């Protein structure tokens, strides 16, 4: 167990510098975004109310009050989240291929460690999960700070103050911050299952090379089909026979099967089939 944790720590440290850059970009972009967007609004209000003598009530009627919602829709706010997500998606592939490709084939060392090879697979998956949770945690820390900044820039009369609870229910943030346990299972469980399916597909490619690409695609398609089977059957064969809660539990079951299938297949490939 301790060697597994050491491996997770090692994998995490390999991404650490890039992770810091992503954190920096997110903090800068979102904080600048709060200042720029709320100042724009205040400047516009000043222009209309004080220079064009528009009554405040009419300005609010035309432009609406200002809330965090106005910020969470902008590129300043969503851009770095998208960037982090894109980097993480690329990293899901890179975390494996960088060990195989290039002059320094670290995969030799990883596969010759005196630990179960499944630990290598799980350590990489854990790293991806930690990075994702790190980004979510950063966002959770930033939201109240950004909200406080907004309160200081925009006058009370023009402000629709949202609580943190209301902010995280914004449509753009809902996937990041599930409000119920079932949503958490659905979003994060689904996300992890997707990562493990990609990991296993990569191991198919690393085990059988060109043929493996074909096997990997077939395997991924089969996994998605199994995962979506309850929804597809309910929609097209049984014509909405199940209650949503029944469907949810069936999805949970198929999701678990797909996740375990990915780990089992990944373990089989990395132990018996993979080649360096």
């Amino acid at each position, binding site marked *: 167990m301790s060697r597994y944790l050491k491996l997770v720590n090692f994998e995490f440290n390999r991404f650490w510098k890039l992770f810091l850059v992503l954190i920096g970009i997110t903090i800068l972009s979102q904080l600048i975004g709060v200042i720029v967007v709320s100042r724009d609004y205040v400047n516009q209000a000043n222009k209309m109310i004080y220079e064009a003598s528009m009554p405040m009530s009419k300005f609010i009627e035309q432009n609406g009050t200002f809330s965090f919602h106005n910020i969470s829709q902008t590129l300043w706010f969503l851009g770095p989240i998208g960037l982090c997500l894109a980097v993480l998606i690329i990293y899901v592939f890179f975390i494996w291929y960088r060990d195989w490709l290039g002059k320094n*084939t*670290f995969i030799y*060392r990883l*596969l*010759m*460690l*005196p630990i179960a090879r499944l630990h290598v697979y799980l350590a990489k998956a854990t790293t991806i999960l930690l990075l994702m949770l790190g980004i979510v945690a950063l966002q959770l820390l930033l939201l109240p700070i950004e909200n406080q900044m907004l309160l200081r820039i925009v006058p009370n009369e023009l402000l629709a103050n949202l609580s943190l609870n209301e902010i995280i229910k914004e449509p753009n943030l809902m996937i990041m911050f599930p409000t119920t346990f079932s949503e958490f299972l659905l979003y994060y469980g689904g996300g992890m299952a997707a990562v493990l399916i990609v990991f296993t597909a990569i191991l198919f490619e690393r085990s059988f090379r060109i043929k493996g690409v074909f096997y990997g695609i077939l395997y991924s398609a089969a996994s998605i089909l199994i995962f979506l089977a309850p929804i597809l059957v309910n929609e097209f064969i049984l014509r909405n026979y199940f209650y949503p809660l029944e469907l949810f539990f069936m999805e949970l079951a198929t999701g678990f099967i797909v996740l375990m299938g990915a780990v089992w297949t990944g373990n089989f490939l990395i132990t018996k*089939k993979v*080649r*360096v």
Partner: protein
Amino acid sequence: MIEVKEVTKKFGRKNVLNGVSFTAEKGKITCLIGINGVGKTTIMKAIMALTPIDGGEILINGEKIHKGSYEKITFIPDTITMLPQMKISDAFTFMADFYDCWNQERASELLQFFKLKESDRISELSKGNTAKVNLLLGLAMDVDYVLMDEPFSGIDIFSREQIAEVFTSHLIENRGVIITTHEINDIEHLIDKVVLIDHGVVLKEFDTEEVRESEGKSVIDVMREVYKA
């Protein structure tokens, strides 16, 4: 003892190993010789379970390879197995973290022997020095068997001599070594056993001392005979 029994391996339609069998004993240096592409590296990788075999069996001390085996056997491939951004000291820490058989004293001794510094960054080392670090990481482990793939390939004569020196030192004593090389001249006098391979088949397996004494032939003489035939 490492036992390679009737091992077969195909890449696509090409038979790379075609029933390869040989043994390598502890305390002896066994050399796999053959031209490029005959399957020497594949055999090494197969022993270490870094490539699956299609048929046959490989046993290390009578057991199939498992996670614990990597504390008893190590493989030094012809590329560095550590991250380029690491310093040698980082590589030492990594090895100490994961291997019970890591011997820091021996690592320091080898570092001195190869005239390297712990603060050296792997990416900044010459090819010769990178090969030495690779060798160092393998030899600093208290293992029974060391597998080396082309340790002399593409490095300067001085580094080659230094690496060859390792074979006569206490660092190799009592270990079983399997080595693949083209540079047979450098270590001909050091090897105990030769396995000549061609097109995935063992052409001849012989004890160098025996051939020298009974037939008065060197390894290169035997190689010439076998390959010309």
